C-alpha cells in the first residue's frame, strides 16, 4: 500500500501554488489510498489545505515558525514516519531542493529530484528528470522503500474542487540540539511582491542586448508589469550588475517552465537555454537575425528591442 505525504510550503500565511499542485499529483497517484499533507507550524495553512487532503499533520514545535532547513527536515522526517509514507512530495523550489536530500539521507530513502512526471512501476516509483544542462531526459527509478520527490512547478494542475474535509491533527516536534545551529537572518525580497520566478506563468527575461540597467527597468520590467509576469535576467545581464542573482535563469541560476517566456535581447547561450527550454510558448526579440535563441522560439522577432518592446507594450494595452 502506498502512503503519500505532501510537504506544504507556505508564504505569507497561504500555501504556495507549487504545493497545491502536489496535492493534485498525490490524489492522482494515490488512487483509493488516502493523501496526507504536512504543514509546518501554521494552523491557518493547515485549514486551507484540509479540503484537498484526507489528513493534515500540523507540525508544531520550537523554532518551526521560521524554520531553517535542518528544523524543517526534522519536522518532515517525523511526519513521514508518523504517516508511514512511501512517497514524500515536495515543491522543487529552493527550500525543497535543500530539505529533500536531507530527508532522503535521514530516512534511508531515495531522491527523485526535480521530476516532471511520476509513476508507479511494479513496486517502484519512477520519475522523469532532465540532466546534462536540460538537454537529456532520464527515467530514474527509486531503489529504496521510501522515495522523496521534488516536483517542478506546473507539472500538475492546482486542485480544482475541494474533495472533502481533511482532519487536522497536531503533531508535536521535539527540538533536537544541532538542528538549531543555522540561523536565517534578515530577508530582502527580490522586488515588489512578484510571484516566485520558478512558479511564474509568464516570464520576461532580459539579456545583454537590452544595453543598460535603465533600459532593463524600462523595457523588461515594464513589459513584465504589463503582463503580471516575473522578471528574469541572463548571466550577462547579472554580471553587468543590472539585475540581482535571484533573477538569473540558466545553468547557474534558476530553471523556469512558464506558459509564456519572452526573451528580450537574449542571444541564447546553451547555459541560458538549459534554464528555460521547458517553457511553453517562447518569444525572442533580438536585432541579430542569427541569434541562437531564434532556433528555439515559437515567435522570432527580428528588430531593435528599444523599438519593438514599446510597440509591444502599446499593442498589449490596446488589446481587449
Amino acid at each position, binding site marked *: 500500500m502506498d502512503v503519500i505525504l505532501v510537504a506544504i510550503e507556505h508564504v505569507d500565511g497561504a500555501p504556495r501554488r507549487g504545493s497545491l499542485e502536489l496535492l493534485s499529483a498525490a490524489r492522482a497517484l494515490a488512487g483509493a489510498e488516502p493523501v496526507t499533507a504536512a504543514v509546518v507550524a501554521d494552523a491557518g495553512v493547515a485549514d486551507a489545505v484540509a479540503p484537498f487532503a484526507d489528513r493534515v499533520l500540523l507540525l508544531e514545535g520550537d523554532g518551526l515558525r521560521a524554520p531553517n532547513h535542518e528544523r524543517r527536515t526534522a519536522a518532515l522526517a517525523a511526519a513521514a514516519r508518523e504517516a508511514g509514507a512511501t512517497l514524500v512530495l515536495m515543491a522543487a523550489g529552493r527550500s525543497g531542493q535543500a530539505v529533500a536530500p536531507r530527508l*532522503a539521507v535521514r530516512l534511508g530513502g531515495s*531522491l527523485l529530484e526535480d521530476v516532471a512526471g511520476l509513476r508507479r512501476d511494479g513496486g517502484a516509483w519512477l520519475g522523469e528528470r532532465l540532466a546534462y544542462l536540460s538537454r537529456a531526459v532520464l527515467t530514474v527509478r527509486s531503489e529504496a522503500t521510501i522515495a522523496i520527490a521534488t516536483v517542478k512547478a506546473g507539472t500538475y494542475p492546482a486542485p480544482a474542487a475541494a474533495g472533502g474535509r481533511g482532519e487536522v491533527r497536531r503533531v508535536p516536534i521535539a527540538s533536537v540540539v544541532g538542528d538549531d545551529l543555522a*540561523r536565517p537572518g534578515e530577508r530582502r525580497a527580490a522586488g515588489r511582491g512578484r510571484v*516566485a520566478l520558478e512558479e511564474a506563468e509568464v516570464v520576461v527575461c532580459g539579456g545583454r542586448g537590452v544595453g543598460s540597467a535603465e533600459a532593463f527597468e524600462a523595457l523588461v520590467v515594464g513589459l513584465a508589469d504589463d503582463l503580471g509576469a516575473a522578471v528574469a535576467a541572463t548571466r550577462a545581464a547579472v554580471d553587468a550588475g543590472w539585475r540581482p542573482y535571484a533573477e538569473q535563469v540558466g545553468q547557474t541560476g534558476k530553471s523556469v517552465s512558464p506558459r509564456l517566456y519572452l526573451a528580450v535581447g537574449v542571444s541564447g547561450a546553451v547555459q541560458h537555454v538549459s534554464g528555460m527550454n521547458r517553457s511553453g510558448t517562447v518569444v525572442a526579440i533580438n536585432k541579430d537575425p542569427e541569434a541562437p535563441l531564434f532556433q528555439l522560439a515559437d515567435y522570432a522577432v527580428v528588430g531593435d528591442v528599444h523599438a519593438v518592446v514599446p510597440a509591444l507594450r502599446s499593442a498589449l494595452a490596446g488589446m481587449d
Partner: protein
Amino acid sequence: MIIVTYVKHVPDAEARLSTEGGRIAVDGASFALDGMDEYGVEQAVRWKEAGIAREVVAVALGPAAAETALRTALALGADRAVLIETDDDLDPVAQATPLADAVRRAGADVLFVGGKQADWDSAALGPAVAEALGWPLCDWAIELRVEGTTLEAVHDVDDGVEAWSAPLPAVVTTQQGLNEPRYPTLPNIMKAKRKPFEHVALAGVAARTSTLAAALPSRARRGVRLEGDPAAVAADLVRRLRDEAKAL
C-alpha cells in the same frame, strides 16, 4: 581551519550527446572541473591566502578520469587532493556517506560544494552531505565571511536574498557571484603535478536510484519569424500569441 572543497569532472557544456543502451553517451567530449565548483575552490584558496585557512583539500568521487578536475583544483591552489575512486553510477544521496567520511578524515571545518552539478543537473549533493555529517547547510551562498568560529553568509532564496549564520563546522554550496575564480597559470599547473594526491578505492555503496532510460528530446517550435515595422510586428505578435498560441 581546514577546508574540503568538492570537485566534479563534467563534460563541456556544448559536448555532443547521444543515447546508448538507455544511457547518455558523451562522445569525445572534453571533461573539466564543474564551473559551480570553481567558486568553492577559489573561496578556499582565498581564505588560505588570507591566513584564515590552514589547509585546502580537494576531494572528488568518481572514475579515474576525475583526476583531471582534481589536478585543476591543485593548480588553482588546493594543497592536496583525494580521489574516492569508483566506476559505479552513484546518485548524490548514495555519495553523501563516503564523502562525509572523507570530510571527517580530513578534519575539515568547512565543506564547499558547487550549488548544482552540470551533468546531473542536481543540487542535492551539498544538502545530502550536510545531513550525513550532521552539519548546518548554507545553500547558494553569494557572500561569505568567518567571524571567529561563526560563518556569516548571504544566500539566495526563492524570492530574494537572506542573511545566514551558523557556528562551524558547516557545509556551503557555492555559485556565481560568490567570487571571481582565477585561472590556473602554467607554473602552478606544473607545481600541481608534485602536490600530494591520494587514491581511495570505494566499494560496497548501493545506489539509491537507477537510470532506466535516457532520451534526447527536441521540442517542436512554431518557428515563426516576424520583422519589419515595429508597430505592425507588435500587433501581429499580440494577435498570434492570443489566437494561435493561446498564450495571453
